[in-house]
């Protein structure tokens, strides 16, 4: 498709007088002047070259690509919310602050935690805030030697990256053959230099960590804290509270669990929730009620806070959408989310097994997602997980997550979410059966896929070599 930079009409500017010294003025601005209709057509056509939840089944593991209700978008962007300047005094934003205070309380109840700060801009910033609170906790107790964070090998890449950004050293822990954590390895790693452990439960292996209470006991006995990565909260939503599993601090990915849009890669919202021991360290600002009105808290209200993570109070527009979703579903709706997310995942897992696909943990119940490994197809026919992913696109199905977790070879991580109907799942199974036949009989069709998209397989190696990153 042509570029917006090709649409240019000469138009004289009407700038008027500028009171800016000549040495600070720029000579030229090399940007185009398209017409409004040209802009409309160009970006409408670009949008049609995308897969999206609104147009395609999108079983992208670990990303929880559920339906993003339009009512949430409409209500969050009402002019009464959209026009608020962040420096607007509390008295002129009581409606908004009341909603955010309710959201803080709802998330505390949902997670079994004591206090919530909504300010982290995404899951990874929530992780950073969480491990920073763990750091502040140990420092306040004079235990500055606790400089290590334990993380299972299968964890999301953000976990070790966030721990390192908070100044920690990372030690990775192995998982046992059934997907649960290796407790002996945990015992060997624990010590008075360990600040905490970061866990996802259900884990990224698509199974529930059954020993969680024992893990929590051993970690707490050693003086360390437990961090819960909320990426997989959809699997247990409304049923199991991380606070009751023994976690001290966690983040939620509101853009996954609470259905706010992924928007082509953001914005997210990564609210953090803590138990009583970490309450003093929560990032500012939270919304509080000071007896007369709701207002944003300052550092003076929470002197031990790890500080502020962004210029203002966080991704408010995303938080509003999340709250609409919560209130639309209510307590019973939230419990149904996890039930149907698990039903859909287990149904697909059983269906694929019946076709001969190998799943990573056949002896286990799937959580809201599960792993298929096509290492057998790779050995027999040279068909890789990447090829399966690209071929699925030909059938109007977005690829699952591939090559994550890294420790399962040639894997696909499949998460259908509760939004998808049995008919959609059955069609996916039919397509996957065809792909397996193709892999065995005509593997080239997979290796050269996709065939039916606006572009064929994209040359990523050339992209990295040329590095043409702007025009």
């Amino acid at each position, binding site marked *: 498709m042509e570029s917006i930079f090709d649409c240019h009409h000469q138009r004289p500017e009407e700038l008027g007088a500028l009171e800016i010294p000549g040495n600070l003025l720029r000579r030229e601005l090399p940007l185009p002047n398209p017409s409004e209709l040209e802009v409309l057509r160009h970006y409408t056509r*670009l949008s049609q070259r995308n897969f999206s939840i609104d147009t395609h089944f999108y079983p992208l593991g670990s990303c929880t690509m559920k339906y993003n209700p339009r009512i949430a978008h409409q209500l969050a962007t009402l002019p009464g919310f959209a026009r608020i300047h962040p420096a607007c005094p509390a008295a002129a934003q009581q409606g908004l602050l009341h909603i955010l205070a309710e959201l803080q309380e709802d998330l505390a109840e949902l997670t079994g935690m004591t206090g919530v700060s909504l300010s982290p801009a995404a899951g990874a910033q929530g992780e950073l805030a969480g491990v920073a609170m763990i750091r502040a906790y140990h420092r306040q107790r004079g235990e500055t030697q606790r400089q290590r964070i334990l993380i299972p090998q299968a964890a999301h890449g953000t976990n070790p990256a966030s721990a390192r950004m908070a100044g920690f050293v990372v030690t990775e822990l192995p998982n046992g053959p059934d997907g649960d954590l290796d407790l002996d390895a945990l015992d060997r790693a624990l010590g008075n230099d360990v600040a905490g452990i970061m866990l996802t439960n259900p884990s990224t292996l698509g199974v529930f960590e059954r020993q969680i209470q024992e893990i929590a006991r051993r970690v707490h006995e050693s003086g360390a804290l437990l961090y819960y990565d909320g990426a997989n909260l959809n699997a247990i939503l409304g049923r199991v509270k991380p606070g009751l599993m023994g976690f001290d601090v966690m983040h939620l990915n509101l853009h996954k669990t609470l259905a706010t849009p992924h928007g082509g890669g953001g914005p997210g919202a990564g609210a953090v929730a803590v138990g009583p021991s970490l309450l003093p360290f929560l990032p500012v600002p939270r919304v509080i009620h000071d007896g007369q009105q709701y207002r944003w808290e300052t550092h003076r209200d929470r002197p031990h806070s790890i500080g502020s993570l962004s210029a203002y109070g966080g991704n408010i527009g995303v938080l509003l959408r999340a709250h609409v979703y919560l209130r639309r579903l209510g307590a019973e709706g939230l419990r149904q989310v996890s039930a149907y997310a698990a039903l859909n995942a287990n149904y697909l897992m059983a269906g694929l097994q019946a076709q001969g696909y190998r799943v990573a943990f056949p002896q286990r119940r799937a959580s809201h997602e599960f792993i298929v490994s096509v290492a057998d197809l790779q050995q027999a026919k040279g068909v890789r997980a990447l090829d399966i992913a*690209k071929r699925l696109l030909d059938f109007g199905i977005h690829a699952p997550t591939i090559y994550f977790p890294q420790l399962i070879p040639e894997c696909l991580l499949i998460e259908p979410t509760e939004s998808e109907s049995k008919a959609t799942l059955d069609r996916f199974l039919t397509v996957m059966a065809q792909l397996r036949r193709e892999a065995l009989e005509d593997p080239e069709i997979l290796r050269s896929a996709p065939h039916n998209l606006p572009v064929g397989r994209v040359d990523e190696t050339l992209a990295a070599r040329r590095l043409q990153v702007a025009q």
Partner: protein
Amino acid sequence: MPYIPHDAEETAAMLSALGLGDLEELFSEIPAELQASTLDLPTGLNEAQLRRQWEASARQQPDLLCFAGGGAYAHHIPAIVWEIAARGEFYSAYTPYQAEASQGTLQLLYEFQSFLTRLTAMEVSNASLYDGASSLVEACLMALRLRPGTSEILVSEGLWPHWQKVLTSLLSLQGITLRMLPLDPETGYTRLPSGDFSAAAALIIPQVNRYGLLEDVDQQSRWAEAQGLLQIAVVQPLALTLLRPPGEWGNGGVDIAIGEGQALGVPLSAGGPYLGFLTTRKTHIRQLPGRLVAKTVDSQGQTAYCLTLQAREQHIRRATATSNICTNQGLLVTAACIYMAVLGAKGLREAAARSHQRAVALRRRIQELPGVRVPFAGAIFQEFRVELPVSAVAFRDYALGRGILAGIPEQELDPNADPRSLLVACTELLEETDLAQYLQTLREFLQES
């Protein structure tokens, strides 16, 4: 249940395929005591009930004439911007890892990168970060990686105080020190000190500064170069349509230029979501944090786009990645890209010029009021500082009753600031009658107090 399609028959068929009696059996591996808790949340509401409640809440926020800035500005957003950005194909897509199924988002990100490199006259732009302040944190970390062995960043006091707080929170975690360069109390410009800066990686140069002033950035850039420091420019994208871009500052341009992109078609929305950008030289590209899109070809040799240099990122490099960041601000980038396209060079420069002219006019007329001082006489872009004879909060609250958000009392950004200091900003949305109303309100306030 909302948004769950299964009927009873389908549910039963699926359970039966799994050999299960009911939905609860799906959770049989989870210890029963962990599942015993209750969930004390309200019953769900239907759309009509929700709409009624939320519209009432939204009405509690008065519609104010906005003279507040501080890094977030009330510019006009053309209707087309969010009509397109909210299309489901953009709104409900994920990160474009599968390039063939994401050419729309990828080309749009590539165009955004191109808009930003042209605005800043830098060679490379990433596909956005959370917001301006977090982009600055990432820029500092990038500078420290480019200068191994350093642990300090020099920061002009002219940087927004609320951004300084974010730098402090996040950089202190890694033992990085911020060394502040004070402003001259007479001019409001950054003072360049002498001393030993060998432990520092970079100088942060804000253009525009916290008082809305335009500084002599060439001088600061050359000074940093002479000290052997990297240079990080903090810029406002709309201002850049009129101002010399950071890629041309000093002798050869800065190393990194970052900023807040909210002014480019993103609603104020009480502080977020916004978008940060980070641009740099091509030689620094492997230290760049965040997503990056490149132009390439497909198997038939047609033009195509994809994410590139992913080996920098956390999903591959884990603890040794350039950043923990895993998202960009895709939806806001979509809006910003469409905004820049639909205004075009002409519209962007005119919006910037109008904003500037309104601020210049208001500053001049405020200065004529008795008892009011405009402490800094230097050139401004769209914002300026006023010293009132009484508390700035008192005037802000008074004006609120007249439907005006009169600015930001500086003390709300910085507890050490003069309580009489008010930061006032203008955009092209304000008409001559709005300025007159502002002045009339201030005049009456001064008479009454």
